[in-house]
């Protein structure tokens, strides 16, 4: 036992004392952080200001003002969004941000109004750089009333990717786009937008202009047909209200909220974590065994320890590595959650948006459910199954190349639970989920995924017992293979030979 422990400790230290291991642990919260923060950062700073020239070539439609107003409104909304984000953590304790007004106001006025509610050292809000800025055309592109002639000059100018200094701008900038507004083919047809831009990927600007023109045209048509545009806008804005109920919940609490959705989908995230953990630490185990085998260290080890002690030590050591890895992931997610809570502040939570309530719901779910205990249990049982098989097969191979023939098959088998992650929550107690649950190598992943759907108790216990028995059988068989194969040299064993070793015929 002492020797098994010594081997486990060395195995643990060998795997955890590498930069790659800690980088792998940091990667998950880093990805989480990036997924939650990068869109915000990009929204604020990522997109440079787009400079747009607008030409209204319509016959007295005054669409220029329509588009200008629409773009200004969109810009004000964006500024307000950033202002709310800036205000939330700077409010005095116990103060909540008033509900958002549908009609955007200037943030400077808002800051004055909110002054008494805010902390003394709140400072002053700096608005983000505008997303779009309307500018006058450079002199050489002056609009002379002839479309084809203008577009010929424009094309040449834009092809040269020239910079110019628009009025009111301190630096030379590229012209992102030129929008030419034209009448439709008939008096009752909507106008045409001729949008010239070398950037075809960023469509937000052309979408906004099309939206402005469409709204204006529809409003004009409603009026022409004797309908009130404001009434129609009001009617179009209405939407049926969804109230979802789950009969399995306690009486009076049947209504489904975000917590329920989280509870339903969080196990899938844990299955994914479980899969990565089992897969990656099985690889660690294989690499370590192959290193010892190809360096002939195994022979020295086996003069000091029994094959069973060696196998136990390796299994325990690498399991500890996996435990640290998954604890690192879960811990960092919990820390990130609380960090988000802390930075958002209680005031932001009061706003009751999904994004704001998510961390709290997630924390509650992690600390107050069967999710974590189930994860630990299925991690251990799943790991033991795969690790024993990997150790037995690895012990018959002289190098990683030989081992890859085996690991390729195992990786293919492990793809089944990975593929099932997405569809099992949709029918967690259906026939496919039930059948997969009773196949021991898949039990940990599938049952973990079904945790939220309260599968029948007999299935939970039955599959667990079957998995336990399979683990014992696999460990026993693999220990027999390991004991025989570990000192053997030459070709990797055939399946028949493996079977003979398990049965003790060689």
């Amino acid at each position: 036992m002492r020797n098994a422990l010594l081997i486990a400790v060395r195995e643990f230290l060998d795997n955890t004392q590498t930069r790659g291991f800690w980088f792998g642990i940091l990667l998950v919260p880093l990805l989480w952080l990036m997924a939650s923060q990068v869109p915000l950062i990009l929204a604020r700073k990522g997109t440079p200001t787009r400079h747009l020239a607008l030409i209204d070539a319509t016959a007295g439609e005054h669409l220029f003002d329509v588009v200008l107003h629409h773009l200004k409104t969109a810009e004000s909304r964006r500024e307000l969004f950033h202002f709310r984000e800036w205000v939330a953590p700077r409010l005095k304790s116990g103060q909540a941000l008033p509900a958002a007004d549908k009609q955007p106001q200037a943030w400077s006025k808002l800051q004055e109004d909110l002054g008494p509610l805010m902390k003394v050292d709140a400072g002053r809000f700096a608005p983000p750089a505008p997303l779009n800025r309307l500018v006058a055309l450079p002199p050489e592109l002056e609009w002379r009333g002839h479309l084809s002639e203008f577009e010929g000059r424009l094309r040449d100018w834009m092809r040269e990717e020239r910079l110019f200094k628009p009025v009111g701008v301190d630096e030379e900038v590229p012209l992102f786009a030129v929008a030419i507004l034209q009448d439709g083919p008939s008096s009752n047809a909507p106008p045409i937008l001729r949008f010239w831009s070398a950037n075809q990927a960023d469509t937000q600007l052309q979408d906004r202009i099309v939206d402005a023109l469409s709204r204006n045209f529809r409003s004009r048509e409603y009026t022409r047909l004797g309908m009130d545009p404001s009434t129609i806008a009001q009617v179009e804005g209405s939407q049926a209200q969804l109230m979802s109920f789950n009969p399995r919940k306690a009486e009076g609490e049947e209504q489904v909220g975000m917590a329920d959705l989280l509870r339903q989908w969080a196990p899938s995230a844990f299955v994914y974590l479980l899969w990565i953990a089992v897969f990656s630490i099985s690889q660690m185990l294989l690499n370590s065994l192959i290193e010892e085998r190809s360096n002939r260290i195994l022979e020295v080890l086996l003069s000091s320890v029994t094959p069973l002690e060696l196998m136990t030590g390796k299994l325990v050591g690498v399991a500890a590595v996996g435990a640290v890895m998954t604890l690192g992931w879960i811990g960092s997610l919990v820390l990130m959650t609380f960090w988000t809570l802390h930075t958002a502040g209680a005031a932001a939570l009061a706003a009751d948006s999904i994004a704001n309530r998510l961390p709290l719901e997630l924390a509650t779910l992690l600390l107050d459910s069967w999710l974590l205990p189930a994860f630990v249990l299925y991690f251990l049982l799943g790991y033991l199954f795969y690790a024993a098989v990997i150790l037995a097969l690895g012990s018959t191979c002289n190098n990683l190349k030989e081992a890859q023939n085996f690991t390729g098959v195992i990786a293919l088998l492990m793809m089944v639970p990975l593929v099932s992650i997405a569809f099992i929550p949709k029918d967690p107690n259906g026939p496919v989920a039930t059948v997969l649950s009773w196949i021991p190598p898949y039990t940990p992943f599938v049952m973990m995924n079904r945790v939220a759907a309260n599968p029948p108790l007999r299935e939970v216990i039955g599959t667990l017992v079957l998995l336990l028995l399979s683990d014992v059988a696999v460990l026993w068989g693999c220990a027999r293979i390991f004991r025989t194969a570990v000192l053997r040299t030459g070709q990797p064993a055939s399946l028949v030979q493996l079977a003979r070793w398990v049965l003790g015929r060689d």
Partner: protein
Amino acid sequence: MLAALELRHVSKSFGRFHAVQDLSLSVPAGSVYGFLGPNGAGKTTSLRMILGMLSPDSGELSVLGSPSAMSVRNRVGYLPEEKGLYRKMTATSVIAYFATLKGLSSARANQRARELLGRYGLGAFADKKVETLSKGMGQKVQVLASIAHDPELVLFDEPFSGLDPVNQEVLEEILIDLKARGCTILFSTHVMSHAERLCDRLIILGGGRGLFEGTVSEARSLLPIRITLETAEASPTLEILPGVHSMEAQSSNLWRLELEPGASASAVLEACFERSLRLRCFDVQDPDLHEVFVHLVGPSAREAALR
């Protein structure tokens, strides 16, 4: 003298291949015992059986008085033929690790590791990772790892292979030190000069069988003594010299004599004087272990190599 290790009629087969057949040997406690044989003679299989990694099909073993090496494993040290270490560990930690597996406490193992590295010229590399050491240094570290727990019996499988002459001398020094403190050493080798210099007793294996077991001088006595003899006068009568088995004339006054087993070179010299032969040269060539080895295993080894 008590035997530290005994094998009695031990056999081991793998399928239809008989790796070791009816092998018997006895290694006296405190001695250096040579385990000689060509490739495929059954040396490594025998060592693995002694260590308890393989079970013999038949026969008996006694390792430090125990029928299984596993029960006395902390008193045995082992260096395998193909050497390897954990490349990412330091020299000290790798020696200490193997010593802890042999029962030493972590503190004592570290202390022993540093002590040994210092004593055998690797003190400056104690905290270097194994992957930064030269091949020879790595092998020395592995030798030290096999003796750090002060074993009573050490089994070295080809300890000299891959070492340069300087490091071979260091290894000899280690073996001599071990012997001096009463440790029993069994080592296999292809290099006969090492066996001649170091072994008290040896066994020569061939085709899985023990072909000879005894001391180095007993081994040498298996082959006749040769004498190169040169006289001042041409064609003297030499047939009458005692104990001469055969003679071959190299020229009219130069002969190569081969003595009968057990015959003495001094008796021949005495007879030469008695017969008033005017000797210019009387050169006695004792057979060396290399010749004995080739004589014993040559035919079977050549057959095996050609197969």
